[in-house]
């Protein structure tokens, strides 16, 4: 089972390596990891996607909490959170295929952010499924390069207060 953890950490040198080191040392696998500062510049937010059953997740959460620089760990359940990932996909293209690629991008509400004589670059945002879907559709044209940010996520606002 895959879990998305939001981990608030001190914005200090070496924190990423402490977190990553804990995962590798204890044999847990990271599917993706993103880091960025929060509205509070002394704090960073890591979004970590981990595979594991409930026992593994319990240990991962506890071990993360043991790190002094970790301030808070939140297990973001899919139903209670919003998540996005961004991908840049450089696709082979020429005069014949350009418009077709643009149409696909349109359907996915993706943007064309660069066009060259032999390629164009598509920027797409969405959940993992959406990005995988557009990737599949663009594959036949030939994907030259692709960069994915990994997931970022926030818990949903309370529906009734």
């Amino acid at each position, binding site marked *: 089972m895959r879990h998305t953890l939001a981990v608030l*950490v*001190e914005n200090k*040198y*070496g924190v990423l*390596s*402490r977190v990553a*080191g804990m995962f590798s*040392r204890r044999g847990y696998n990271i599917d993706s990891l993103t880091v960025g500062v929060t509205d509070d510049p002394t704090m960073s937010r890591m979004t970590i996607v981990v595979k594991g059953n409930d*026992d593994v997740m*319990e*240990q991962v959460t*506890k*071990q993360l*909490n*043991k*790190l*002094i*620089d*970790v*301030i*808070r760990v939140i297990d973001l359940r899919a139903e209670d959170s919003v998540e996005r990932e961004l991908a840049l996909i450089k696709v082979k293209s020429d005069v014949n295929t350009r418009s077709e690629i643009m149409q696909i991008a349109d359907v996915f509400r993706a943007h064309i952010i660069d066009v060259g004589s032999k390629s164009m670059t598509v920027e797409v945002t969405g959940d993992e499924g959406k990005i995988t879907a557009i990737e599949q559709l663009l594959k036949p044209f030939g994907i030259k390069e692709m960069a994915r940010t990994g997931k970022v996520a926030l818990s949903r606002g309370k529906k009734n207060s």
Partner: protein
Amino acid sequence: MTEPTEKMIGARALIECLYREGVDTIFGYPGGVLLSIYDELYDADIRHVLVRHEQAAAHAAEGYARATGKTGVCLATSGPGATNLVTGIANAYMDSIPMVVFTGQVPSSLLGNDAFQEANITGITMPITKHNYLVQDANDLPRIIKEAFHIASTGRQGPVLIDLPKDITVQEFDFYYPDKVELRGYKPTYKGNLLQIKKAASKIEGSKNPVIYAGGGVISSDASKELLEFAEKINAPVTTTLTGMGGFPVEHPLFLGMLGMHGTKYANYAIQESDLLIAVGARFDDRVTGKLKAFASNAKIIHIDIDPAEISKNVKVDVPIVGDAKWVLQKLLEYSSPAQSEAWINRIDHWKKDNPLYYVEPATGNGIKPQYIVEQISAACKDAIIVTDVGQHQMWAAQYFRFSKARTFITSGGLGTMGYGLPAAIGAKIARPDKVVFAIAGDGSFQMNSQELATAVQENVPVIVSIFNNGYLGMVRQWQELFHGKRYSSTCIQDSVDFVKLAEAYGALGLRVTTRDEVRPAIEQAIASERPTVIDFVVECEENVSPMVPAGAAINEIMNLESKE
């Protein structure tokens, strides 16, 4: 109130911080990048114990910490000085011992440059410290030191390392020591959840076969008095782990001895037959549990631990209680009533009678069984602090010494570090000069840090090293005998060293004991000498530690090892 600031350099500030943390002793070894610090130490009101190898500084600081409960402090230079500390730091981490470790570092401007004697010690020690710091500005130094002592000594204790680049030690700044620590990511839980405690109490009341399994956490939280009262109140037998030894009086009728691989048969039987296991400050280590699936499989488990990550790490727990052992035991005392354990206690008494720890005296009459030496040390000086190395002698010390108080057994449990004994004994003796301190060692282990005899002599620390000299790396030899058809591959070290001459070369007292009759007089002579002493006890070569549960077996699958004549 903030205290007035004063201008000073980093090295001076370090000393000021140590004063404020109540540090009276540090163990260390100087080096190029530490010159300013050593210059300040020259007339500081702190005892600096110069070891002969940095590894010993870490072990000695740990011995000091374990004998007192205070935080041990050690210091080494950059590069090899720092890497030599690594084993000692890992040891303290595994056994959760409070320690603050200072390392010198190359100047900030050279960091990452592969400079002379540079090692990335914060990177190296990340997995074996509770936390570590690289100081980037002297202004941060007082806060960092304050935090380090706080982190090391609270919650689940452990080592914290502070790496000090040389330029920081000479940087002048306005010194100010904070009186509070503010760490938003670190808030250990001391008070256990009352609902859980009440739930535990009701489980105890309904239990017929309860067993208390106590670990090093009882020692760390000074909870041995509470443990005793609790065990008596609920009428449950107590077994301790290796690091929990001393946490419960050996001569108490409820005591089962140590459990696990070399535990008593009755402790292991009791665990396997129990219906309620109360773990206090213990972590279900593989040397304790044997085959996990078969461990206490009929028991409900209450687990009291200050580290939430230990709960349900190895064994599924029914009633987890996160908190300080002392605090939780006090509350449990309040809420618990006795278990229905009378028949159970009777049954255990029978197991004790039928399966005692035993050994056979050698047929030759005057040969020495190692167990006999432990008994004689115990009889000669029952209040002694026993520090051990790692191996057979360590197990015999745990099995046969009649411990009555906490902090009198100091041993490398989790990491199993050979060479730990002598330096840790030096640290313990410096911390407790009023106590007789024995380092029980094997002839193998002792040679891993025997250079520390020089420290003991120069610093006039009268520890008594008792070498159980069997000419083998005994524990490995035992496994080779049992599991590899007596093919003693690289475990024979017979006649390689004259330990008496070695002791004398260092200016220590050296005694050799080859017959049973000489054992006790030699022990008495060593105690009376008040000098660093090495006693070379020439013991029976192939005696085995018994009982023994082979690795990976259930703990009631006990091998019958005959004590050899």
